[in-house]
């Protein structure tokens, strides 16, 4: 176990370091500075702002300064939201996006696994084709389309659910979670179906049947755990993608999450904020991949952590 964490940590460090370095220089090579505005800002003002944010130093100096601050856990001030630190903004946005992602992944799992299971139990029948077609519709229905559609139907026509906000009025978390989760539900459905079909052909399913178990017991007790292996492998990258991709949903539903910051920071050339969110994302990717492996081991007693590396 410890060896596993150590080796992962050892791999993670260069990954995160390269991400930091590459991002640092990439964003500075993009045209337009953080202080360019519609009404032209005078050169004097720009110079003073650059001075304030250490942007007048040679770029390698800026880089080392940034690193030395980073090592002390200081992500710096946001260049756009002048009285905010990046840490504070991430602290405000991340829990919300995280919560949204958790709900979304839960919905994706519920819908995806049930659809995939239904389909796998009777392959090549209507019970297979209908959920799988729906899953495919989910894949081709991007959130920028599904979100407004759901809002139109449930928020405006039926008036069942609020169309915006997060924790402001009851039920306002439902539509965003469904919107964000649906694409993943579709992928999970396909993965579950594939995994279940493979497991259902295993000998131990026959053993279970020979014991006199009913179909539902066989599926839930014996097949599901093995059948979900591909889903588990998918979950790590999916949650990371979910967090990064929540921008669209957060914009549609007016949710104060990190996704909006992540994208807006790029447009605003809010260098420190881009760095902060990117570092966070790379840590998340590393962490979630590790979690995904841990989960796989937990689900499958045959795997051990150390043997994987």
């Amino acid at each position: 176990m410890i060896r596993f964490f150590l080796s992962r940590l050892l791999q993670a460090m260069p990954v995160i370091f390269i991400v930091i370095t590459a991002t640092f220089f990439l964003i500075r090579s993009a045209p337009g500075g953080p202080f360019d505005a519609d009404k032209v800002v005078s050169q004097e003002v720009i110079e003073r702002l650059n001075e304030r944010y250490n942007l007048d130093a040679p770029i390698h100096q800026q880089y080392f300064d940034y690193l030395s601050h980073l090592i002390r856990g200081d992500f710096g001030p946001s260049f756009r939201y002048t009285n905010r630190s990046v840490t504070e903004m991430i602290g405000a946005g991340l829990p919300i996006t995280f919560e949204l992602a958790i709900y979304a992944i839960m919905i994706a799992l519920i819908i995806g696994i049930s659809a995939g299971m239904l389909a796998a139990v009777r392959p090549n029948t209507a019970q297979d084709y209908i959920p799988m077609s729906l899953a495919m519709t989910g894949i081709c229905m991007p959130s920028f389309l599904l979100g407004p559609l759901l809002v139109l139907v449930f928020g405006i026509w039926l008036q069942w659910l609020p169309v915006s906000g997060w924790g402001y009025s009851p039920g306002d978390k439902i539509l965003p979670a469904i919107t964000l989760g649906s694409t993943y539900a579709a992928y999970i459905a396909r993965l579950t179906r594939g995994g279940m079909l493979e497991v259902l052909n295993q000998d131990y399913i026959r053993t279970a049947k020979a014991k006199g178990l009913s179909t539902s017991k066989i599926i839930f007790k014996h097949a599901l755990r093995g059948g979900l292996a591909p889903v588990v492998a998918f979950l790590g990258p999916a949650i990371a993608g979910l967090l990064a991709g929540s921008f669209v949903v957060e914009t549609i539903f007016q949710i104060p999450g990190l996704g909006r910051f992540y994208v807006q920071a790029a447009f605003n050339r809010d260098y420190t904020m881009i760095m902060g969110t990117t570092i966070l994302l790379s840590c998340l990717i590393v962490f979630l991949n590790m979690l995904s492996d841990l989960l796989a081991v937990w689900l499958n007693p045959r795997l051990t952590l150390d043997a994987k590396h």
Partner: protein
Amino acid sequence: MPNKILLPVLLSILLLVGCDLGPSNIESATAKQILHLGNGTEPKDLDPHTVTGVPEHNIISALFEGLISVDPATLAPQPAVAESWVISNDGKRYTFTLRDNSNWSNGDPVTADDFVWSWQRMLSPALASEYAYQLFTVKNAQAFNHGELKDFSQVGVKAINSKTLVIELENPTPYFLSLLAHYSTFAVHPPTILAFGERDQAGTLWTRPGNLVGNGPFTLDSWRLNYIIRVKKNPHYWDHETVRLNEILFYPIDSALTEERMFRTGVLHATSSTPLDKIASYQTNDPDKISIDPYLGTYYYRLNVTEKPLDDVRVRRALSMSIDRQAITDSITKGGQIPAFTFTPPNTQGYFANNNSIRYDLALAQQLLSEAGFPNGEGFPEIELTYNTSDGHRRIAVAIQQMWKLALNINVRLSNQDWKVYLSRIQALDYSIARAAWIGDYPDPNTFLDMFVTDGGNNQTGWSNSQYDELIASAASEADEKKRYKIFQQAENLLMDESPIIPIYTYTRVLLKHPQLKGWEPNILDIHPYKYVYLEDSTINGGQ
């Protein structure tokens, strides 16, 4: 196993779906006098001296008050912190008397010294206020701001006593009073600033809820990042009896479509924008919920006059005259915008441009292009039309692209750019034709026309005309309004004859506004002092 978790989750979701939504914001708002406003983007900060945008302006105008405010209906200056003022005969000396009962929200009185202190802060080089130029009409302010003058006592602002403030100007500036209604000239509470940092330090925590001390009709109650800013009625405000609203909630909403949906489901009383495609249906179905008001802004295209073939005035005029502006405002923008053939919006504080050298005239346009050496567009190079990424700009560009194709047989390539890339390209004159817009800072033609002086920061077309420069300079020192406007008309004629820009339309302010919202007067600056705004059920009022 997952199935043990899934069931409760499913059930709770069903429960949530089944529950009643309860009354919407606006249904419960009237009794409590709580206003819900869409407010564009998240404010960068709430420091009147460092911010620049409209969303910031809206919140700051609730939290602070200047020497002067403007009457929402007429935009005429009216007393605010200053109870009265005297202007010297040469128009260069203003003496303000501050009202006795003007207080900070912690109860401290607002003094003339606060203003002197604040202006020193605002003009200090280290603060790097982007709006410092607003005060450059004040004597020595520019020198101080540029660091050429260290001694602030030489700047033309003095506190004679705690309630008398004297301001000396470089030139008689007829619009100076309206500048004082702008938040960049507001006073801030010196002890608060100093409690959280230096006087000229930006980005300190003084603007946070609990810290911020203002002198406006409202105080900052809570600030949830990217979500809601809530302000509450300020009991220390000198005119608190006029204020009827108890709270205002400002929602930063990036998407106009989201904002419209929030408005439609009763979350907001008013929006900060309106999706183009919704205008028609509101006008037909809910005319009482949409308001279209004139606005002090012009939508135009910049032409890079340093580049062939746009260095030829005939080409520029041909391009300008072959745009069917009426079709664009009728079919694309649809918000009652006025086709523009001059740069300054009509009736800018009584100013009207009188140019008619630009009009929609295809035959003339073709003739001009032909004279420039491109008969029927032959030999005309493909030029690029740059605009910042936005659906509305794209729609207009697509229409104009096609108009030029049909009228002049020239090919224009559209190129949208990320906002910051767009800005840096325009500044570097790295474009041929670029979409632009200008919203006046104050109701005076000067805010439009001084843009195009040689090497003006916002000129950005490469166009330079010494006669124009002289006209704008002479207007600055002219105290008589009629003569001034004449000079501006001359300048504007010159500008349009040369056509370094193609005006397309004069903006209107199209917003969705609930009929309950009262005291919200339309004006060309889109300023709505919240002290006059209140909520009232239109049914009681017999509004239908």
